[in-house]
């Protein structure tokens, strides 16, 4: 069916997993619309500076077609001198951020974009400087330009509450602007991307193929393994490299271990935000067992560093397997007890039920992924729809709830946690013998590859373009929170301000995952808030005085 839709376009690649087609600017909108109507939601978009190859800029729109278990990538190109291409945001809401990102980073102009404002670059970034272009050196530093602040008339009957960037609820610097009337939130604004680390630029400019997994792992402190896996899968896809069975299984195990620890961590945070610190402590105690599992297998509690292109680096021998199983049993028993009694508590349920509602249709249009989508009744899970690693061989269910509220997000994660436990058991049980890594492969020149994993927060997509002598030409990781965040303002509306923290937390936001895709040196993003930084420092100073 995708084939029908793409009829008349230049198909660059078509296999059982991915379809890449170059579409003409005139047709892109209706093709995108048809794809969306055919049940493919917008996954991510990557802008590329392809001037060294063909003197053009390209924009890759990645669609996820669960129905056909494939990713459809629409390639749009524009000559380097023209630099305009039609925006598909009018028809696909989810494309909003990706296009604005390409705007900031590469200077591509999308005509017809509803809100062509800066998304990623801070207010004080000079105009007309595009960091992801190939002619921009990665270590260049620029003096901050003068930010242009917007003027608007405040309303007398509405309170404007800033939430962040340094709010105890947000464990990473992000900025929400909440408009409160009475105790109700009437509107909310989001401004993110303060944690700029310029990883893409770094990877493209000075790292080699097998170093990048360790960088990708540091995209996120919680779900790093999925990112490195996704990266490796992308390379393997591009160069189509055979990955040994045992390696696939070990990857699966680590991914699920990571999922459990991430979910338990989230439950703890949720309890804390709802003022129930005992549950917080109990859950994190249960989580310790899982951290021990990770430490036992990979030699570290987090940043497992287990993935390489073509396989994994560490084996799980028999004696470890036994220990792992014991720890798993302990963790499952413990967390199940605690979670059950937490779920029974009345005031906690009341604070989650019918709070932060995200209607299914809206969610689909924004393109939310992972537990947020499943809690809104959208039946999507990369592990099932695009089987990777060893997920094809395991049997598991995908929990879907129709509540559309925080409680159902809670329940989705609850089910997933215990699914993961016995997925790990299955994987450990029927893990085939064999080598761990396949190291003889050729990296082709300038070839597109895509790797998708189901992070605890949803679908992670890594799109990359290889470049001979073990480098990557362009690497675009898209974290799941990047798709979920635009839904938060929708969820916040018409809720009690007391519920804002739990609603924001209910998508299990991972801001630095989202922001890594931005630019250059870490100071940049904070320039906007430098005043408060200095203030904080001053406070400290006085404290010492």
């Amino acid at each position, binding site marked *: 069916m995708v084939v029908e839709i793409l009829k008349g376009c230049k198909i660059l690649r078509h296999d059982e997993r991915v379809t890449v087609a170059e579409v003409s600017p005139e047709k892109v909108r209706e093709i995108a619309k048809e794809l969306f109507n055919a049940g493919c939601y917008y996954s991510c978009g990557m802008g590329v500076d392809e001037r060294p190859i063909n003197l053009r800029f390209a924009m890759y729109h990645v669609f996820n077609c669960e129905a056909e278990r494939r990713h459809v990538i629409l390639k749009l190109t524009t000559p380097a001198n023209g630099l305009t291409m039609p925006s598909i945001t009018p028809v696909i809401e989810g494309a909003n951020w990706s296009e604005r990102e390409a705007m900031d980073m590469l200077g591509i102009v999308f005509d017809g974009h509803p809100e062509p404002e800066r998304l990623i670059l801070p207010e004080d970034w000079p105009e007309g400087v595009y960091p992801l272009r190939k002619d921009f050196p990665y270590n260049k530093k620029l003096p901050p330009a003068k930010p242009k*602040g917007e003027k608007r008339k*405040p*309303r*007398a*009957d*509405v*309170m*404007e*509450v*800033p*939430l*962040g*960037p*340094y*709010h105890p609820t947000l464990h990473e*610097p992000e*900025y929400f*602007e909440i408009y*409160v*009337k*009475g*105790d*109700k939130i009437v509107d909310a604004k989001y401004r993110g991307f303060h944690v700029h680390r310029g990883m893409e630029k770094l990877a493209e400019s000075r790292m080699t193929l097998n170093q990048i997994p360790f960088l990708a792992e540091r995209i996120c402190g919680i779900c790093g393994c999925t990112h490195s896996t996704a990266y490796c899968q992308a390379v393997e896809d591009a160069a189509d490299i055979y990955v040994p069975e045992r390696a696939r299984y070990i990857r699966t195990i680590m991914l699920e271990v990571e999922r459990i620890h991430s979910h338990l961590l989230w439950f703890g945070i949720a309890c804390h935000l709802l003022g129930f610190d005992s549950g917080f402590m109990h859950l994190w105690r249960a989580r310790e067992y899982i951290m021990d599992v990770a430490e036992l297998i990979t030699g570290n509690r987090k940043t497992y560093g287990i993935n390489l292109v073509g396989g994994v680096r560490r084996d799980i021998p028999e004696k470890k397997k036994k220990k792992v199983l014991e720890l798993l049993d302990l963790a499952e028993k413990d967390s199940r007890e605690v979670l059950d009694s937490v779920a029974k508590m009345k005031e906690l349920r009341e604070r989650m039920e019918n709070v932060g509602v995200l209607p299914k249709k809206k969610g689909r249009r924004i393109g939310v992924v992972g537990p947020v989508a499943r809690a809104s009744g959208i039946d999507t899970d990369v592990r099932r729809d695009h089987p990777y690693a060893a997920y094809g061989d395991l049997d598991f269910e995908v929990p879907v709830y129709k509540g559309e509220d925080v409680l159902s997000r809670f329940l989705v994660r609850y089910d997933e946690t215990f699914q993961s436990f016995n997925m790990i058991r299955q994987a450990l049980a029927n893990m085939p013998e064999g080598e761990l890594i396949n190291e003889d492969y050729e990296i082709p020149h300038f070839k597109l590859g895509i790797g998708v994993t189901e992070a605890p927060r949803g679908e992670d997509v890594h799109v990359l373009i290889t470049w001979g002598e073990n480098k990557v030409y362009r690497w675009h990781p898209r974290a799941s929170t990047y798709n979920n965040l635009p839904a938060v303002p929708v969820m916040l509306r018409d809720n*009690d301000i007391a519920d804002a923290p739990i609603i924001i937390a209910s998508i299990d936001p991972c801001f630095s995952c989202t922001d890594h895709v931005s630019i250059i040196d870490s100071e940049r993003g904070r320039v906007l*808030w430098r*005043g*408060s930084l200095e*203030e*904080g420092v*001053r*406070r400290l100073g*006085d404290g010492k005085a």
Partner: protein
Amino acid sequence: MTPLTVIVILFILAAVVGLFSGGKAMTKAVNLISALASLGICYLGIIGFTNAQSVKLSLFEGGRGITGLLGSLTLKVTPLSAFFLLILGVLSFSASLYGVSYMDMYKRDTRLYNVSYPLFLLFMMLTLLTQNLLWFIIFWELMTLFSQFLVAFERSERAVKAAFKYFCMTKAGADFMLLAIVLTIIKTAGTAEYSGISQVLPSYLIYHPAETYAIAIGMIVGLGVKAAVVPLHSWLPDAYMEAPSNVSTLLSGVMEKIPVYMMFVVFLWFLPLDRYLGLGIAVIGTLTLFFGTMYALKQTDSKRLLAYHSVGQIGYVILALGAGLYLLSGGDALLGAVALAASLYHAINHATFKGLLFLTAGSVAYRTGSRDLNYLGGLAKFMPITAFTALIGALSIAGMPPLNGFVSKWMIYASTLPTPTVLSLFGAFALFISSVTTASFVKYFTTMFTRPPLERIEVKEVPPTMWVPQAILAFVCLTFGIYPKLPLGLISKALTSVGVSVPALKTFPGIVIPSTGNIEPLAIFVILLAFGTAFLALTHSKVVLPVWTTGTRKPLAMRLPASSYYASFEEEFEEVYSLGEWAGKAISSIWRGTKRLAVLYEVRSYQADLMMTASAVALLIMVLILGGVSL
């Protein structure tokens, strides 16, 4: 040439000269003269307590015709009226002094004000001084007339409407009262003199409860409209909001007390003690304080908020009065006397702190030209004195020790709460409502003075002629709070004059009601002061930094709008408000009916004269009833 004549002449003089020009200078002169005369009123009040007979003015001795029917006009100060004269004197002095600068606000011809203001004061005084029911009703109506001119002073449509509504309602109330008075005079064989009535009437009415209730109801309705008891209060918020602030001060501070004075006269002097009457009055009081204050919580206009609180506080006064009647008739002389004393005490306290608050609201309006609590903010930086006096006023109306509101409220609780009757339930409501008052005035104060403003407001402190009156009233609040002996002495004199023997409360240094309760405001004040200053000395802060708003520096409106204060509380107590709305709907439907009736009976009428038309009907009914009972 008694002092009384001097005062009367002064007022009339002020009115007459005020007639000549509407310039600022003339207004100032009128206000100054009124202030002078007010000092005279204070003097009257003081000597009234010492030797009542000295102030006596008789006109029309043995006249013919109409004056013959009225009998001679005797103006005399009894201790009770002296007490209210004091309130009148102090408040009208502050208000007039305040008016000297305040009236500059109004750019238009102020002749209307120049004439009505002194006459309004004069007739309030005469209403308190007269000893004859018929003269009383005459002065009462004149007072209403001039006060409604003052309300209409701004001549804006809302002002005129408010004034007319006020006039119609009080007028209709007065009709009820007139009925009661007529009935009284019939029963007392033609004498309208207070002394005469008090000799004849009670002994007769004891055996005729029907007449008692008839008179009582007439009086309660008539006086109640003026005192704005729920549900007859609807005129008050509009009127108080529209009047100039110094006039609102007088309306809420004094004019609202005159019906209370009359209630004391009627129910303690003319009518026999009756527990159900007392109970009824207490119920009315409770309803008034509950609904008045609960509605005040929602207001976002400074003067409207204060107006609703006047309703609520009058509720306290009336509750105490009713409780006193109930207890006295129940034979509990001690608590009954305490309740009556509490009623008078709260009356004078309400006069002081509410007057003060209206003045501060006026000062803010004078400088910023706004009464909108959603808009205002951060004024304490620019108007520190006003802010401080407003804080004193707010704390004392909230009943915070050691300010005066605390003592009177405490006496009310003491007389109601521990009694094993339904009164204690009323007391509980009063206690709850006191907390609502606190909340409401936290809102009043913080929205105007502390919270950051919507946009920069740059103003100066008001001129001394405006803050001195505030300071005076604030001082009175504090004094009556920590030294209750002074007012209680006057009150006991006043009560003895209407035949209630006040048992000796131990009034210095504290108040002790044997086996019921005891407070020692002075001690509390001293300890608070000692600790407070000590701790204040401990804390110092040199470092000044911008507010920490979780790291952002965007210029947002980070201010709680007055409309969203206590939102969730109001949401949970929705029943109260929905009840109010329901009542409003019901009344308006009745009004439509009566309107039709009125048109039927050719009573060409304005929107707001529901009470008038209603009274036309009620008049009929009353006459029939009275006919029944008196024949």
